[in-house]
């Protein structure tokens, strides 16, 4: 004869036993997942570090200067281009002709005696029909493009740099 209480306790024991193992395996799999995620985070962190270094490498002042020489030919800001007070800024020219001017002009300090004002054309917004294909931009003068002596082989990417570093040690 099976006593009712015995049956009750049997059910309680098996349920708790099952629950305990279920929780245990649940925790284990969660821990595994946590570890996987943490490892993935670490891998991402390393990748971010590498990308940051690569970004720093690709945006070196030297590279930016070379790219500027090749594509933009922007010069340093000349004192005469700076205005200290609001009233010094000339009003925008009303003539629509200014819009056809190139978006970026090669910066040349104005000749001595010339009125030192910023022409509206230099700060005119780009019109949609006129993308940045002004002749000044498309082909920089050879003198400017090659003003700097050609450097010996520079690493193209961070990978190459690291490879050179390793070879050098």
């Amino acid at each position, binding site marked *: 004869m099976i006593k009712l209480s015995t049956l009750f306790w049997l059910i309680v024991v098996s349920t708790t036993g099952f629950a305990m193992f279920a929780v245990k395996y649940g925790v284990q799999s969660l821990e595994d997942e*946590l570890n996987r995620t*943490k490892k993935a985070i670490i891998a991402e962190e390393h990748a971010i570090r590498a990308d*940051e270094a690569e970004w*720093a490498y690709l945006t070196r*002042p030297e590279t930016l200067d070379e790219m500027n020489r090749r594509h933009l030919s922007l010069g340093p800001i000349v004192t005469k281009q*700076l205005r200290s007070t609001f009233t010094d800024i000339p009003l925008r020219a009303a003539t629509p002709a200014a819009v056809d001017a190139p978006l970026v002009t090669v910066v040349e300090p104005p000749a001595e005696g010339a009125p030192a004002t910023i022409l509206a054309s230099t700060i005119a917004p780009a019109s949609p029909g006129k993308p940045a294909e002004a002749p000044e931009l498309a082909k920089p003068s050879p003198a400017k493009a090659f003003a700097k002596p050609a450097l010996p082989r520079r690493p193209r990417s961070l990978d*190459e740099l*690291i490879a050179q*570093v390793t070879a050098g040690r």
Partner: protein
Amino acid sequence: MTAAQRYDDNPCRPRHFKPPPCAAIVPDGPARLALEACRTRLLVTGTLFALVFAVVALRVVEIVAVGGGTAESQVGRFRIVTASVPSHADIVDRNRNVLAATLDSPSLYANPKQIVDAAEATNRLVKVFPTLGAAEVYAKLTSGKSFVWIKRHLTPAEQYDVNQLGIPGLEFEHEERRVYPDGGLTSHVIGYTGIDNAGFAGVERGLDSLLQGRREPLQLSLDLRLQYILREELQRVVADFTAKGGAGLIMDVNTGEILSMISLPDFDPNRPVAPDPQHPDIPLADRMFNRITLGVYELGSIFKIFTVAMALDAGTSTISSTYDASHPIRIGRFTISDYHGKRRVLSVPEILMYSSNIGAARMAVAAGSQTQREFLARLGLLKAPKIEVSEVGTPHYPPKWREVNVMTIAFGHGVSVTPLSFATAAAALVNGGILRQATLIKLPDGRAPQGQQVISAKTSEQMRRLMRLVVEHGTGTMAAAPGYVVGGKTGTADKVSGKHYAERKLLSSFVGVFPINDPKYLVLTMVDEPHPNKQSHGYATAGWTVAPATSRIIERIAPLLGVQPVDESSPEVRRALMVESLQGKRIEAY
């Protein structure tokens, strides 16, 4: 038959009915003793169990209700992966551009015992690494050992390629490598590291312990853009005048922060020992030498600002004092003469403006050797500078401060200091008289470190006026950068070679401050052994070499530093920089 059995036989007995307890049978003799021993043991065991369960129950309560976190930390020690911290923290500039980074650099090794087909594996490995010799790799893979290095420090792309091969028995070992994205641009400041990423020079060595195990990057006061401009302009001067080297420094005069520090020739910290591809003949020691912090030089005439400041501050001269500079001074075996003598009596502003050695020597003699020595010590020129890089030079000065020493030191010969010490002291002369230690660490915005008042604010103001005069009318006219109100002083020193001064070997330097009416930044430029060229009309003096470079540097950096150009002829600027004793007089051109 016991009583219980008898009761059970009764079919009508209710379920809850319990037989009444029998009268205790208390046996006598040994049986009784045994029973009592049993009871005691039961009691002890029961108590023990109760205690253990109580402990377990308490622990459960503690974990659940009081300190649940402790359990996880116990588990984590064995199982949970913790985030890895690189062995050395990154170094960034004041705009958070990366100057030095620690990157993962896996190394490839093989376990030859697990390699199935060594010949096949060799063929495929050599395709990924063309620099490896096939025979060598094959020998390694068939060596029968259980560990051989194939290649150290792979790039991420190489690691990917090796993973793509899918050869069993190839493994990666995690290693780190310090990378300097800007190469030579920051070489002398950052320094470089050796194996195990230990710092060997510069900030890497000076702050090695600080960088280790740090998670946050270290932010320097350096500005990469300024660094590039300064280096480019100095390279231009060195090339134009076929000089041996050059050096430059940009400093915030109000905080002591160094915004840029360049020493040429320099090296690539990624490959410190590799020869320079453009100048393979320059010796390594020369390229590693930091001329700003380690080099000590007799800086020549730029030292006259100290002589004038000393005399004005001590009260031995006033701005209208005059000194006879019509004849050279002969003292012992020395003759002190002027480079471009005016051959007349000069006032204090004129002595600085025309850079008169005779005048400066007479001023210093009037002040006395004790005053001069104390003044230089007060400005920190007689001890090695304190700076975050590991290379610092100790100044040279005469052990006995005789009259001839007083005279030569007045125009910058006889005392050798590092350009860094000079710049720190010069900043104190113009910023209101407060000496602040130079630093490469970025300070929190708007917080200037506690300084030391070394000259009076009035003397400092007079120095600003006098230094403006040098650029307006004196030897430094080529340093003018219209709108930025540059003030400064030129210095052309003869270099010592052996026991004598070499006539042809010069050290030309210029210290410039802008805007001098409200000093913000100091630019020190120096060129070692410049040779005259056609553009400079046969001169290699500071006024023709580094002064024009300073002008170009200031014109390029001022917009980046947010310095507004002003109208130099406006009454406010004129009034702020006027020298009373020269008012109404015609100023002779230099």
